[in-house]
Structure formats: structure tokens, C-alpha cells
């Protein structure tokens, strides 16, 4: 059936758990664009046939007209599916900058196609330049703070890091009392966890 593949593409993205990203399905995407080209060719053939018979393409309601209409509708439908696929992925890609940070882990990068990676870089750069102009880090304090310091446990080997008020050796399983703004990006990346008091 027409438009089946395009809908599969959308289904694939929608069936992921919320806020998760599926790998970019270039193969299926290409198949759908090829299907679009086929529809276009068929559509033109039918329109030409109507014109060759000397009929008015606007007013004629013969079998050729309805055939062309079906191809036209399938084309529009495929376009909508492709657009929705890219648009909804772009939404997630933008949110990555806020949730994960400017550097993406390999497991997520592998799921993006080239233009999405570029889009992420450009979005990240735009946000960075805005934040440096405002002299304000907008990506921290997503949870209203109670205390400027929090206690955290390190989950991964981060090593020696220069924090805003001190330099610390963040060895795995060590427990630290850090400034909240310093700890927040590490927690978002899954390298630390907050210890509940």
C-alpha cells in the first residue's frame, strides 16, 4: 500500500521510550524518497495523458484524474511522514544540549546522521555565544536549589578536575562535597550521583 514505508519510519521513532532516540534509519528514508520520485513520475505521466487527449486538467474528472489524485495524495502523505520524522528528531537533538551538555557520548552520536550532528553543533554554539554574552549559564539549576553545596558520590573515573572553587581528585567511589553548579553537569552525564541526606 502507498505510504506504508513512510509510516513505518514514523512508527519506529514513536515506539522508542519517551525522550529516547532511535538510530537514524537512512535506508528506509531513502526508500521513501525513491517512492516519492516514482509517484512524481506516475503523476506526470497521467497529467500528460489528460493533456494529450485535449482535456482541461482542472475540470476533467475521468479515471486518469483520480489516478493522478491518488498519486498526488500519496506524495503529500510521504512528505508529511518524512518531515515529521526529521522534525521530531530535531526536537530531541536540541534537547540533548540542555540535558547532556555540549559533548555527546559515542552511543548517542552513533544514532545521529551527519546533518543532525552539524545541527547539534550549531545549536550548541548559538547557545554558548548567547550565554557568554549574558554571562549566565542557563543549563544549570534545572531543579530549584536548596543549598549551594551538595554531597555526591563519583561513579566513574573522572580524575583531577579544576572546579570553580577548588581542584579535586574525583576518583571512583569517592564522596565529595561540591558546589551544586559544578556537580550538575557530571550528574547529568551519569558520572556522579547525588547522595540523599
Amino acid at each position, binding site marked *: 500500500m*502507498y505510504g506504508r514505508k513512510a509510516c513505518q519510519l514514523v512508527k519506529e521513532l514513536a515506539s522508542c521510550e519517551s525522550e*529516547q532516540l532511535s538510530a537514524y534509519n537512512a535506508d528506509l528514508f531513502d526508500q521513501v524518497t525513491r517512492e516519492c520520485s516514482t509517484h512524481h513520475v506516475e503523476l506526470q505521466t497521467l497529467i500528460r495523458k489528460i493533456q494529450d487527449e485535449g482535456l482541461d486538467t482542472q475540470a476533467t474528472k475521468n479515471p486518469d484524474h483520480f489516478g493522478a489524485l491518488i498519486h498526488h495524495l500519496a506524495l503529500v502523505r510521504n512528505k508529511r511522514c518524512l518531515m515529521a520524522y526529521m522534525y521530531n528528531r530535531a526536537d530531541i537533538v536540541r534537547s540533548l544540549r540542555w540535558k547532556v551538555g555540549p559533548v555527546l557520548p559515542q552511543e548517542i552520536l552513533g544514532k545521529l546522521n551527519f546533518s543532525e550532528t552539524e545541527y547539534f553543533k550549531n545549536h550548541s554554539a548559538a547557545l554558548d555565544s548567547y550565554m557568554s554574552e549574558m554571562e549566565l549559564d542557563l543549563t544549570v539549576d534545572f531543579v530549584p536549589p536548596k543549598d549551594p553545596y551538595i554531597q555526591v558520590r563519583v561513579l566513574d573515573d573522572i580524575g583531577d578536575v579544576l572546579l570553580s572553587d577548588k581542584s579535586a581528585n574525583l576518583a571512583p567511589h569517592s564522596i565529595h562535597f561540591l558546589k551544586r553548579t559544578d556537580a550538575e553537569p557530571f550528574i547529568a552525564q551519569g558520572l556522579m550521583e547525588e547522595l*540523599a541526606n
Partner: protein
Amino acid sequence: MGDYYDMDEIMMEEELVSVVFQKAANGVVQIDPSAETNTVEPGSKVELPFWLAQELHMRQAVSINVPSCFDQKTRKEIQADVSCVDLRSRCPYFYELGCKIAPLIGEKTIGALLLYAFKCRYKDILIKGHNASSVALKSASLLTKEESGLYEAARSSMTAFKKWRMGGARYQRATILGKKRKSDECT
């Protein structure tokens, strides 16, 4: 028409409805699987996805039959015990499709049917959602897309409420990274 990029609407419109062609159409394969040529004859009965059926109906090229999920059998089941009817397997977009298709086929009773089914099931879903533990609900497989969204909303708001009352870690690993480190999260 709703949001152009809405994935749920796109998937809803992929639902098949049975139509009868009033006009012939040339140069189309795949539409009528029983046709030997690539022409669809008037009077042939085929299953079309809703997006195509709707547009063709507006141009009087096809007439739409009442989909099987709104037939007498389903209606009887809904009247008997509405919360036990497996609407998901009938049509995961039962309400949305019903709303869209009712004006097209001129079936006045569908609206009342949808309202009755939703009103009765809504209460049930909300009670279950608020009291559910983290394990998946057995009757969740009966719910349509819309209803499982409601159930999930009720469940998560209850979880958030409990978390707020008990306190606990407020900063979390970004959910998009997945749940790879399960052992670490449990500590």
C-alpha cells in the same frame, strides 16, 4: 487538521478503513490487490488507509463503510462491560478515528458510543493509575494509545508526589542516556 508534525495523528491516519470506489482510477497499482490491471473499477471494495480514504471521500470518489471497530458486536461488548473490552486490538486510535470518521459516514450514534466508552473507562484508568505500583498493569494491554497516555500520566504524577513527600535525590542522570548502569542507579 491538527499539528502537521504530530506522530500520533500520522499513525492514526494509517488505520485501514474499508471503502467502495464510486469512480474508476487509472494507473494505480497496490490499491486493489485483486485487480489484474492497474485500474481500479467503480464498485470495487478495498481497504485504504484513512488519510487516502478521507481525501477521496471529499471528492466523492469513494464511499466509506463503518469500520469494524464500531460494529454491532463491539457496541454490545461496550454496553456489557466497558472496562474489559480490548479496544487496543480493535483499533489503537479508537477515539481519534471515531471522531474523524463519524462526520464522514454520517453515523450519528458513534459520538454517543465514544463518549460513553471514554467516560466509563476514564474513571477506572485513573484509579488504577494512582494506585499502581511500578509493575506493569495486566489490563494495560486493553487500553488505546490515548488511554495508556492517561494511565502513564496518573502513575507518574503519583510517583512524583510520593517522591516530593519522602524527599530524595533531586538531580538525576539525563534520561536520554538510557538505563545502562542499572547497578549504579540502585545504590
